[in-house]
């Protein structure tokens, strides 16, 4: 089924629990992370632990990609299966912005000089909040505090710096910072039309994939920030009342297979970075990854840098609420 948002699937499972439907549920497998995962974990809505019951799970790179076992500072405990990595990148049209920017502060400066040419997705959208969280990493006096639950005393100095920066940036955003694209993908047609020159993405291969589909100009390129960018993993989870648990596990295991992972990482397909530890794979599987084509629009490996951990979910909640209060009314 097509949902506009993962939260709709979560809502459905919660509704079914409320209606007393403990088996034969309508959702078998959910693509989930962040607050949705936390909500389901806390309310005991997940089946499992499942991860180590899947044969292909042994190749998951738990050391090198800690986001596969800790989701937004919340231990996953095998209740969800990581199936692809994601990392914040910025996509720019090199024909209009030849030199990548290196910090969120530089973005604000650039926007002042080029009003209306950048934006971020709506704050209700996870990528919209991620834009603010990315800025928080650069602006907060104490980066370590972001990994702990947000308390008033930690929040205040970080928030002050954040909103001061945002107030400098916002008037120069697309549509004067009064309206925002509803989602990440909604930014693509805007760049294709020439309305936007720079936008945030959570997929290092988005530009390469979109160029191939004719959804972005050939001149689209990708950059990351000097201080690093936030990364996380996408998970699959099985609701406690799933009607087809075995099939759901088989699907999740298939998505973890080297074959599926390599295909997903192919920029001609999805371009999703793998969760697997390539060094641990048998040589013939490693070769699948080595054979993938490179694209000038895509960043991989070292060029991406080691991802920053997602802040504790409470930061996201607080910042969203504060944004709504300040700019949403």
């Amino acid at each position, binding site marked *: *089924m*097509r*949902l*506009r*948002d*993962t*939260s*709709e699937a*979560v*809502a*459905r499972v*919660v*509704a*079914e629990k*409320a*209606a*007393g*439907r403990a088996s034969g549920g*309508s959702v078998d497998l959910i693509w989930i992370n962040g*607050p*949705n995962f936390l*909500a389901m974990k806390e309310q005991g809505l997940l089946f499992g632990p499942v991860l180590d019951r899947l044969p292909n799970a042994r190749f998951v790179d738990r050391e090198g990609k800690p986001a596969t076992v800790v989701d937004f500072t919340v231990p996953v405990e095998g209740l969800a299966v990581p199936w692809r990595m994601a990392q914040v990148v910025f996509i720019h049209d090199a024909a209009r912005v030849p030199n990548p920017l290196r910090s969120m502060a530089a973005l604000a400066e650039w926007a002042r000089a080029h*009003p*209306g040419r950048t934006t971020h997705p*709506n704050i*209700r959208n996870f990528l919209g909040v991620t834009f603010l969280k990315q800025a928080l990493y650069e602006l907060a006096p104490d980066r370590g505090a972001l990994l702990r639950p947000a308390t008033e005393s930690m929040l205040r100095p970080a928030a002050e710096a954040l909103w001061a920066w945002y107030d400098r940036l916002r008037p120069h955003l*697309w*549509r*004067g910072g*009064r*309206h*925002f*694209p*509803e*989602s990440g*993908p*909604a*930014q*693509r*047609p805007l760049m*294709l*039309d*020439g*309305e936007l020159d720079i936008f945030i993405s959570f997929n290092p291969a988005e530009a390469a994939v979109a160029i191939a*589909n*004719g*959804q972005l*100009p050939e001149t689209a390129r990708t950059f990351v920030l000097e201080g690093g960018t936030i990364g996380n993993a996408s998970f699959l989870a099985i609701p406690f009342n799933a009607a087809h648990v075995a099939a759901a596990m088989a699907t999740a295991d298939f998505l973890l297979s080297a074959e599926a992972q390599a295909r997903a990482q192919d920029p001609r397909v999805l371009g999703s970075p793998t969760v697997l530890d390539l060094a641990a794979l048998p040589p013939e599987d490693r070769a699948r990854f080595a054979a993938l084509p490179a694209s000038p629009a895509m960043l991989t490996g070292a060029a991406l840098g080691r991802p920053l951990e997602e802040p504790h979910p409470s930061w996201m909640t607080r910042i969203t609420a504060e944004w*709504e*209060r300040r700019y*949403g*009314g």
Partner: protein
Amino acid sequence: MGTAIRGLSRCCAPRRRWTLALFLGPVLAGLLGTLLPAFGWLPALGGAALSLDPWRGLLEAPGLARAVALTVLTGLAATLISFLLAMGFCAAAQGMRAFRWAQAMLAPVLATPHAALAIGFAFLIAPSGWVARWISPWATGWERPPDVATVRDEAGLALVLGLVLKEAPYLLLMAVAALGQVPAAQALRVARGLGYGPVMAWLKVVLPMIYPQLRLPLRAVLAFSLSVVDVAVVLGLGQPPTLAVLVLRWLSDRDLALWFPAAAGSVLLLVLVLAALALLSALEGVAAWLGRRWVEKGARGGDAVLLRGAAPALFGLALLASALAMAGLLLWSFAGPWRFPETLPAALTSATWQRQVQAITDPARTTLAVAVLATLIALALVLACLEAESRHGLRPGRRVMAILWLPLLVPQLAFLFGWQVLLVRLGLDGTLVAVVWAHLLFVLPYVFLSLADPWRAMDPRQARAAAVLGAGPCRVFLAVKLPLMLRPVLVAAAVGIAVSAGLYLPTLFAGAGRVATLTTEAVTLAGGADRRILGAYATLQAALPLLAYALAAAIPALLHRNRRGMRAA
């Protein structure tokens, strides 16, 4: 077939009651299922005591005041503009060739689903849209689209215009139908003979005659405009959205506690609609009083040269915008690279369709199945009711008619929410049965309204002659009435399919998000997907009802090609 019809018609009055139960059940149970959680009662979610907390939650929601204001303003404006445009056109274009042209354009515009038209309209008027491309860069100097919100604007103008594109033609159609039932031409001639100008004669003599028949359609337009979701998602501002969109957003939030303020919000929407309907009644009273004095004064004149030019021009512009919107959808679905400010795509290709064919087939098939099933059931019920009417000399009272209009007057959100909870209880949520049932609530009234007048206008002598020749009621129905009524029956079926193919909220709720139709897919994609893919979905969404209309026109023409008396008037 024969036995089925006999069975259907044997006990007709109870059938009608049964039809109404099928019909009223979901609406009333749904309303109750919305009302209770709005006051804190939803035991499944831990709401076991009546309270006002949901209302507190609703009132504290950021942006609520602006959402309500936006809802009321856009709903009233869309209704008022649609009405003025349709009546202005009628008054100004009577007897002109433009009137017949417009009438010919009505069917395709009305058949096109709201969502498809809204998407096409957005393609047309967006900053990077077709209009901007035509005049750029030679006239505007725009090498890049201007940074101006022409869709999803703060005042909701795009939303109002998008609604007017559909509602003004609908009201015109209703006016045309009403005009056919009153001696309008005769009355006009008399008034003109008494020295009234053509427009004033129409306003003073014809409008009062047809207005009673426009009351319910106008109310349906008002209720729809206030509570519409799909058009508001496509053309309206995301922050703050209209009340209906805001409520829908809460309903799909993972935090189920939001269901309570959402229920309260649905009730608030119902209250807004009822208040707007009351306002309309009050305005009608005032207008009638003022109008009567105006008519009694007997002032002559009223050539209204300006109106006679402006109204057809504006109405024509609306029809043109609809046609261009549809053309734009089709073009995008076949477009290769098409960058701003190119007026036309650099190349045409079927690549989008080829890539999407797999994904699009399923929702297309579901759309067709639901539409055909709902329409067939509606046709069977309506035919049974109409046949019962003519056999027993029954005539539905005002109350029955009001019930028929109920699903069109109550905001969909207000009862679909409660009904979904009930469907979950029945284990029917997300099934095709539930979706067809939900569609039936909206298909049935339109099929009835479309078929009732032609059926009742059927010359009773033909049926009587057949009866005299020894045919039983069943044979008369099958061998005389149905063939005579082939054209209106097929038109009613096409109307039913068009209504079903365009339904968004009922599909979303009864289908529990799992039954994907072209409409739900297109609205989801309208969030910002590739315009070429969106164009393909919206084109197909519009093509389905258009095809139904074309068949409804072609089949009788083919079957009756050598029956002069059966040709269209």
